[in-house]
């Protein structure tokens, strides 16, 4: 039977014809090959050991991460329960009032350029509105009253001329107070707005957008105000625009 390859064939032919096939340095080359084969085996063993170390470390990592997840979920659930935290898939509804000026609709601190406003706070961008007391007694957030009665009884409603009153859908983090809310985000869902002798009551999104873009829309599309915009009338107008 012939040898499998040329190197083995040399040995075969040496056996067959004696040492007539002399090749310079042949035995040294053979020894070099054997040494390197041994080194390759040793290197593979080291790699296998390191792979086992990596596998063990990954297992320990997974177990540690699972333990941390469990601990985190437990402590967060306990905090939610301890602080009576609520959750809702529906927006929390509240009431707001804006001052209507030629340049737009203004809350206490800022102009609402659109029907949606997202709260910001100088005391930190995370977890707004803050509920840990860092903002003082009147904390940050978009304020809304729980009821029209509360809103209309507030000093903001003392001079009911050129005002807009509406229901807002509060989203994100909402902090419930005794008579109102502080929210991360508020979107106007209906509006009664009086400006320049005209009154517009609407729950149409497009209409509401146009009112916040420019109060002239109230003048152009509202009806004459008629009787004063008092508590009873606001109640009637807002009540007539129930939302779902």
């Amino acid at each position: 039977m012939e040898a499998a390859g040329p190197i083995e064939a040399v040995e075969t032919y040496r056996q067959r014809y004696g040492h007539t096939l002399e090749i310079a340095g042949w035995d040294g080359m053979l020894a070099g090959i054997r040494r390197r084969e041994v080194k390759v085996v040793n290197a593979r063993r080291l790699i296998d050991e390191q792979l086992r170390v990596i596998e063990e470390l990954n297992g320990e990592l997974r177990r540690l991460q699972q333990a941390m997840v469990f601990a985190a979920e437990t402590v967060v659930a306990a905090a939610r329960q301890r602080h009576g935290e609520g959750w809702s898939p529906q927006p929390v509804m509240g009431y707001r009032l804006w001052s209507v000026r030629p340049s737009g609709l203004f809350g206490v601190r800022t102009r609402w350029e659109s029907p949606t406003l997202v709260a910001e706070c100088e005391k930190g961008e995370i977890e707004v509105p803050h509920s840990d007391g860092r903002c003082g007694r009147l904390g940050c957030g978009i304020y809304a009253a729980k009821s029209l009665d509360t809103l209309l009884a507030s000093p903001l409603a003392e001079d009911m001329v050129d005002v807009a009153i509406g229901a807002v859908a509060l989203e994100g983090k909402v902090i419930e107070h005794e008579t109102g809310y502080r929210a991360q985000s508020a979107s106007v869902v209906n509006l009664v707005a009086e400006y320049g002798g005209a009154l517009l009551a609407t729950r149409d999104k497009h209409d509401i957008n146009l009112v916040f873009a420019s109060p002239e829309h109230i003048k152009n599309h509202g009806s004459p105000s008629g009787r004063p915009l008092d508590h009873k009338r606001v109640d009637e107008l807002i009540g007539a625009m129930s939302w779902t």
Partner: protein
Amino acid sequence: MDIGAQQRVIIVELEPVELPVLLFDEGNPMAESDRVGLDVIHDVEDRVAGDPM
């Protein structure tokens, strides 16, 4: 506006809920995906019931 003392935090998450298509015919057993949808609904109902808004 003074809104009184702070009471609690409410997290409002307007999650889109996939409504299941229920197939009650005997020849059309409810698909696995529908049952998953039902589980989602039950979960939401439970959470709402626990904290109705």
